[in-house]
């Protein structure tokens, strides 16, 4: 448990290996909900929340159920079920407890289940922090930290994109480039800018 490792995870997840712009995880919501800044912000917060908790749940299940029972090869099935169940649970709780929040996040929550960034971070955590011999509790902690900063990186990219797209609507784009294609070109330029961080090492 070292501070320097935490800082390097944070910088790597937000800037260098940004989930959307350099790993291509979570592109569907990136293009789907980046039309309005408000919606993008709600989606970003919902993703951070779900990512952190599903990282916690999946790493616990992996360390204390799958490894002792020697059924590590079933991890994909387990993880996707955990994520789907968790998202469903959150949706039910929010609908009951806070109708205002449900109105803001509601339609984005079911979408998160099929957001590959959530399953992606769970699998990356296992591959990176749960190699045989590594301490289990540190692994769980690093997983949560990695998931949190991956979520922040996702949120940052989504917010930047939505700000640009709100203005793009007023520009005179050729008909066949309107909407998704021009969003891809903008994302390409953003990704080029984020590549500037790639020499960064701690």
């Amino acid at each position, binding site marked *: 448990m070292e501070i320097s490792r935490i800082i390097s995870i944070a910088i790597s997840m937000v800037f260098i290996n940004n989930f959307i712009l350099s*790993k291509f995880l979570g592109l569907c919501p990136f293009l789907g909900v980046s039309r309005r800044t408000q919606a993008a912000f709600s989606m970003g917060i919902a993703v951070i929340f779900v990512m952190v908790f599903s990282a916690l749940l999946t790493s616990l299940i992996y360390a204390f159920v799958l490894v002792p029972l020697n059924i590590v090869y079933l991890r994909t099935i387990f993880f996707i*079920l955990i994520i*789907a169940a968790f998202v469903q649970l959150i949706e039910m709780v929010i609908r009951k407890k806070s109708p205002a929040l449900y109105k803001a996040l509601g339609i984005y929550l079911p979408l998160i289940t099929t957001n590959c960034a959530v399953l992606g971070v769970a699998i990356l955590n296992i591959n990176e922090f749960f190699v045989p011999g590594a301490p289990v509790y540190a692994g769980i902690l690093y997983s949560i930290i990695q998931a949190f900063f991956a979520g922040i990186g996702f949120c940052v990219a989504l917010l930047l994109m939505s700000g640009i797209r709100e203005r793009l609507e007023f520009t005179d784009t050729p008909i066949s480039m309107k909407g998704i*294609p021009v969003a*891809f*070109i903008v994302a390409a330029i953003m990704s080029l800018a984020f590549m500037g961080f790639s020499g960064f090492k701690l």
Partner: protein
Amino acid sequence: MKSLIKEFSKGITVLNPTFGLILGLCPTLAVSTSLFNAVGMGVAATFVLVFSNLIISALRNFIPARIRLPSYIVIIATFVTVCELGIKAYLPGLSKSLGIFIPLIVVNCIIMARAEAFASRNRILPSIFDGLGMGVGFTLGIAIIAFIRELLGSGSIAGIGLLKSNEFILVMILAPGALLTMGLLIALSRLMGLTKR
């Protein structure tokens, strides 16, 4: 027979997952750095699509409507795991270069979308052809992107070097190149009227 051909061909043309429906973007962009990886990914996704469509269609009258989505996820995840273990055993190189994108086939929207929109409402044979057509359409889309990126980015086609080292643009096989290629190809397919807007 005619209708089966129609189910097969719509995935390649009008409802092409990559350029028409714009689904399953993450693997399309991430693994299209070389033609070999792209075709490997396409074949893996086609395998999962065909078999999950087959099983879901066969069980469509037994799965209660309220829990259909979790049931579909379990069926799809099972075939993804089969696929993952198979690739790891027989093609370790491919398994290494596709990395986490093999398990991520589970959350590929194309498969879930076909399960929900087609396989859960149609008989087994049309569902298989639908899955096959969508899979071939996906493979074709990802292969076209990979062909362009590999040629421009590393100067080769399927690993055979064609260009000298100062003639290609490295950025095309990196992340920005993927996004740029994808944007221009979607715009091109709209301009030519191949896919609906």
